[in-house]
């Protein structure tokens, strides 16, 4: 299983890239009681038979990995959903595209930590595939959107260090902005923090982003 939700998300976006998608949308909505993720692509899609197989853990198309005969990406997703009583739905139409949608309970004790989404977003946006990617990330009422084509228009080639540094700065600033929990929880009493794991989680993530501030 992937150690973080972010790694799982990158992996699913890579499925879309590997399906030849030219348009990918990733929508992440974090609320205190629910984490919702939708990945929509216009890649080659799957027919009913492949879709059934793909939802079986360990199916792979037989081409991606020379030395490995099992596909792990969707299996990891199903495992996480099952373990934490979440929900998952995949809709796919051959030649049209695929939508993967899942919901997880942020307070479930077995849920892997969310991970560093700024790192994940920089890696996904700067991945050199021919196609566009739009990321929408919201935490409670705050959100931001990052679109690959627009960012390339502003920054140029995203494999260049100069562009990457600015891309990272842009994503981190926007992540900080939506994770800014001070506005929501001005003073967090230690006792309350311990009772509410979601708030603890907020703080931890805030600390990660805050570190780069100096």
């Amino acid at each position: 299983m992937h150690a973080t939700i972010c790694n799982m998300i990158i992996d699913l976006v890579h499925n879309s890239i590997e399906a030849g998608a030219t348009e990918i949308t990733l929508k992440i909505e974090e609320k205190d009681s629910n984490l919702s993720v939708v990945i929509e692509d216009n890649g080659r899609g799957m027919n009913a038979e492949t879709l059934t197989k793909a939802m079986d853990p360990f199916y792979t198309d037989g081409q991606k990995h020379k030395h490995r005969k099992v596909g792990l990406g969707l299996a990891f997703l199903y495992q996480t959903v099952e373990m934490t009583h979440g929900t998952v739905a995949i809709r796919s139409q051959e030649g049209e595209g695929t939508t993967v949608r899942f919901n997880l309970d942020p307070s479930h004790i077995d849920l892997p930590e969310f991970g560093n989404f700024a790192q994940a977003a920089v890696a996904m946006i700067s991945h050199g595939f021919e196609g566009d990617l739009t990321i929408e990330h919201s935490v409670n009422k705050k959100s931001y959107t990052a679109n690959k084509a627009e960012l390339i228009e502003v920054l140029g080639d995203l494999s260049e260090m100069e562009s990457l540094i600015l891309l990272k700065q842009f994503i981190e600033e926007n992540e900080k902005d939506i994770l800014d929990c001070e506005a929501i929880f001005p003073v967090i009493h230690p006792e309350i923090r311990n009772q509410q794991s979601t708030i603890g989680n907020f703080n931890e993530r805030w600390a990660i982003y805050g570190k780069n501030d100096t």
Partner: protein
Amino acid sequence: MAKMTLEDLRKLREGKKAEMTQRDSSDKSARIIIGMGTCGIAAGAKEAFDAFLDELSSHNVTDTKIAQTGCMGLCFSEPTVEVEVPGMPRVIYGNVDDKVARRIVKEHIIGKALVSDHIFDKPAADIIK
């Protein structure tokens, strides 16, 4: 905290461009390719990517490109990273975690010396141009 907009980003970019001196064409720059297959991701390829970015920028090395690729077929040594520095053999490193990524920047890209204990593969000397 105010949100950073695309327009802010554009201004930053233009500021950087103005202070940049004219540089040689890009074929002189080093290239890092990170394997981002499922096992690469599971083994920490994203963290390695971030470590490269961080270490390169903290040493002001800006003439390097970072690219990503899918499966390199080397799950057992993920994260795998290919490094190409002009004038040096192309090398594939295995088990590149945050620390190793930072060493590759300091020793290989800046210091021009291979990080021998993490080399997974390098082409035979006679096929190097």
